[in-house]
């Protein structure tokens, strides 16, 4: 049973436009959500996170929105840049720190 779902395996966005990556979860006990970015042949790197008590967290070009009633979160990147092309993983954690990852969305930024 997949608890963290990223239903779009890939997404293409024009450079300069907004990229929106979506994530759904099924477990209402998750209390913290994270986004990781992964380049080929490298390990994932932490991008941004949000606590379940908030509905928005912003860091530069990256904003994460959380809709608890819908069990949905999204990552917005604006403006999108070529270096943003990567695989983005949504993740969620229980209080005991075990983190559950989604399958990832491959983002292509088009010139």
């Amino acid at each position, binding site marked *: 049973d997949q608890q963290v779902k990223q239903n779009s395996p890939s997404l293409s966005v024009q450079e300069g436009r907004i990229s929106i990556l979506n994530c759904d979860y099924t477990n209402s006990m998750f209390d913290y959500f994270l986004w990781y970015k992964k380049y080929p042949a490298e390990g994932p*790197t*932490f991008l941004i996170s949000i606590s379940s008590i908030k509905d928005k967290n912003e860091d530069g070009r990256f904003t994460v929105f959380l809709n608890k009633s819908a069990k949905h979160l999204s990552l917005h990147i604006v403006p999108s840049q070529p270096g943003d092309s990567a695989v983005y993983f949504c993740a969620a954690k229980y209080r005991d720190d075990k983190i559950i*990852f989604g399958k990832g969305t491959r983002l292509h930024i088009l010139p």
Partner: protein
Amino acid sequence: GAGVSQSPSNKVTEKGKDVELRCDPISGHTALYWYRQSLGQGLEFLIYFQGNSAPDKSGLPSDRFSAERTGGSVSTLTIQRTQQEDSAVYLCASSRPRTNQVTETQYFGPGTRLLVL
């Protein structure tokens, strides 16, 4: 400072052989995680070590998989009698001790790419 390192970076083995994958976490990080990523799949949790507590082994897919962490630092993931479906990238991550209910960021190593022929 040095990040999380893993060795080997690539491993090709024959079906039925045992393999050992090594992870050196960031110094001072008491939490250590193993994940694997199969082709076209997300990051699958395998095992989690936190300080001196008993590890959370709930993600290990079979009893052919085991992991240990010596001296609270280096960890070894062992796969016995490897099968072709074990082929994947095995990723290790570490993080600082959790303080004041604040989640600490996981730092990932580059992974070991395992191919079982």
